[in-house]
């Protein structure tokens, strides 16, 4: 056993939080925290298994005085300091500020149609029987340091429950805002449960208002029951000093349809982990991703699709552009278990590097234990097509714009997967802005756009 500065940091924070600052006294939650923290206090980290991003995070923690905000800031209407400039995307918005759920008086809202949304900790108090069958179903180990870290230290997160037989037409949006001069350390834990025959779209954004060194390590667990449809949109626009680790675990029952679109417009250090388990037949998962990185940014996408049941389909299309000295890492793993006959699993990863110093790493990995399957994977990394550039320029288009047109054409294939039309249009615009260098990090919102419009919403009164 080796207690590293990283381990002692976790253990210290844990002690600090245990002194009454975890907001629930539920023994099951305490057991969860306890079990996870043991990964750091007892087992240590097996150093040979630490990958580069883990090492980066460990170093960062050793050199940065991270703090946890121990109490929520007093309530202020969010619109006083946060302007969401999304236009035409009509969403129900929920927000976290520095890891704390923002609300006026009701930490949990139960709507007439049965939807429950709000603080996970409050949900544990009010509806433990609803939460515990789903919470923390992933096995943690000391190798999954970020999952263990989240489980050891999470204070709260968003809880969403969609009852059976409900088509929620308005997308729900979760905005996690960081607004602090401190170097914040935030572990957010979200749980989404979609009941049988229900459908629902969810947009998750990570924003910074001030650019201290922040370390966000979010875990979202999603449970899709029979015949559900769930669309998950994630947008990331982070500054150079921030670390964002976003882990999403999805469990799918029979004939459930999961769609995801994860777009990284800017990254400090961003790691997206997406693990999908196809537990019952005829479930489908369509996973799309786009990453646009430049300067010294780092983005990593780790995907794991587990075909457990027969007759399930999965499809992955991830694309990325790396400029300057940026690094993008794609790690796609598909497992087809012995029982998963008639599986169809496809994976494509396409990359463009704009300079010799930009780095793309792509590791597709197919593991197949069933015989009647259709599977394929493909990865490409290349430059912009010189012939196409010449063609565009020969019509009078300058080199910069010719490159933009080609990059835009490359990137929008991912935006085209978006079903919510208004969101698709916004993604188009944002990709265009990002590629032309207009989407800067000092924009207040990840969805910043030219038309200013204050989105009105009242935190406690969203569905009424």
């Amino acid at each position: 056993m080796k207690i590293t500065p990283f381990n002692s940091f976790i253990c210290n924070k844990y002690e600090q939080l245990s002194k009454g600052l975890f907001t629930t006294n539920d023994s099951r939650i305490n057991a969860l925290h306890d079990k996870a923290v043991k990964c750091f206090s007892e087992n240590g980290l097996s150093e040979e298994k630490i990958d580069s991003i883990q090492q980066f995070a460990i170093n960062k923690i050793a050199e940065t005085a991270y703090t946890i905000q121990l109490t929520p800031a007093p309530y202020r209407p969010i619109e006083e300091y946060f302007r969401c400039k999304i236009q035409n995307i009509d969403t129900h918005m929920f927000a976290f500020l520095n890891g704390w759920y923002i609300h006026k008086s009701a930490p949990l809202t139960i709507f007439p149609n049965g939807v429950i949304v709000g603080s996970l900790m409050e949900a544990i108090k009010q509806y433990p029987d609803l939460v515990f069958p789903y919470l923390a179903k992933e096995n943690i180990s000391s190798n999954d340091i970020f999952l263990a870290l989240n489980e050891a230290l999470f204070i709260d997160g968003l809880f969403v429950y969609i009852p059976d037989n409900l088509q929620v037409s308005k997308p729900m949006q979760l905005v996690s805002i960081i607004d602090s001069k401190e170097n914040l350390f935030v572990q957010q834990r979200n749980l989404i449960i979609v009941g049988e025959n229900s459908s629902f779209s969810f947009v998750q954004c990570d924003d910074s208002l001030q650019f201290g060194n922040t370390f966000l390590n979010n875990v979202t667990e999603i449970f899709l029951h029979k015949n559900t449809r769930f669309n998950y949109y994630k947008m990331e626009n982070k500054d150079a000093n921030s670390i964002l680790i976003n882990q999403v675990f999805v469990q799918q029952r029979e004939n459930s349809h999961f769609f995801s679109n994860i777009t990284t417009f800017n990254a400090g250090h961003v790691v997206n982990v997406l693990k999908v388990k196809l537990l019952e037949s005829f479930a489908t998962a369509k996973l799309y991703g786009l990453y646009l990185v430049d300067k010294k940014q780092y983005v990593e996408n780790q995907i794991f699709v587990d075909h457990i049941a027969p007759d399930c389909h999965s499809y992955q299309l991830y694309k990325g552009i790396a400029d300057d000295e940026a690094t993008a890492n794609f790690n796609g793993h598909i497992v087809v278990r012995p029982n998963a006959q008639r599986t169809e699993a496809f994976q494509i990863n396409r990359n463009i590097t704009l300079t010799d110093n930009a780095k793309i790493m792509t590791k597709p990995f197919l593991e197949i234990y069933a015989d009647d399957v259709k599977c394929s994977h493909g990865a490409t990394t290349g430059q912009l097509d010189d012939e196409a550039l010449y063609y565009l320029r020969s019509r009078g288009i300058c080199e910069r714009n010719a490159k933009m047109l080609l990059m835009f054409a490359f990137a929008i294939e991912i935006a085209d997967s978006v079903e919510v039309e208004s969101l698709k249009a916004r993604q188009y615009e944002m990709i265009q802005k990002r590629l032309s260098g207009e989407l800067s990090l000092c924009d207040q919102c990840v969805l910043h756009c030219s038309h200013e419009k204050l989105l009105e919403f009242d935190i406690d009164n969203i569905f009424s």
Partner: protein
Amino acid sequence: MLTIKNLHVSIKGKEILKGIDLQVNRGEVHAIMGPNGTGKSTLAAVIGGKESYEVTAGSITYKGKNLFDLSIEDRAREGVFIGFQYPVEIPGVSITNFMRTALDEIRQYRGLEPLTPVEFLKLMEEKKKMVELTTKLTDRSVNEGFSGGEKKRNEIFQMALLDPELAILDETDSGLDIDALRIVANGINQIKNENNAIVVITHYQRLLDYIIPDVVHVLFDGKIVKSGPKELAYELEEKGYDWIKNE
């Protein structure tokens, strides 16, 4: 308008053009004919400004300017248009977006206001009719999945829209059936006027039944070995290129 003197061009150390002299004036139509691999496309590429071609000797003057001083895009903005033998496919870039960007930049270079979307669409419609392009074609990605004939028509459509002063059309006729050939030739004839010049590079004389050249040049092994009136094209067709070789 275009004066080429003693042009020598190499690709990867191999000399392709071995001393070309050519004078093209406003209002003229020139035809350059010659067997495969003699350097016709190379000549077009050098005029277009394509990289990786090494000019080892000679000069090209266009409208009194040294053409080699102009970037690829500035050549286009100065009115040079290359109709490509093999137009590339560009998935994801719509023809509309492509042409809009091109026209905006050309107009800006010339100190003109950009067209409004309505004006632009009107212009597109007009030019589409010229080459009998269907509506659908313009909504599609540039050349993606186009047949050979559609690609060539798309080149002439672009030419019509950009209205160049000097157009070099590289085998715009090859791969076209007789109807498509007529449409393409018709389009070119409508664009042609006394202020612009067109150089058609072709393999066969059949395009020249529609577009009457003022001068026909025969390019062979990197040199213009013969120039003459339009009748030269018929003679070539009759006697074949061996006739040139043997002379």
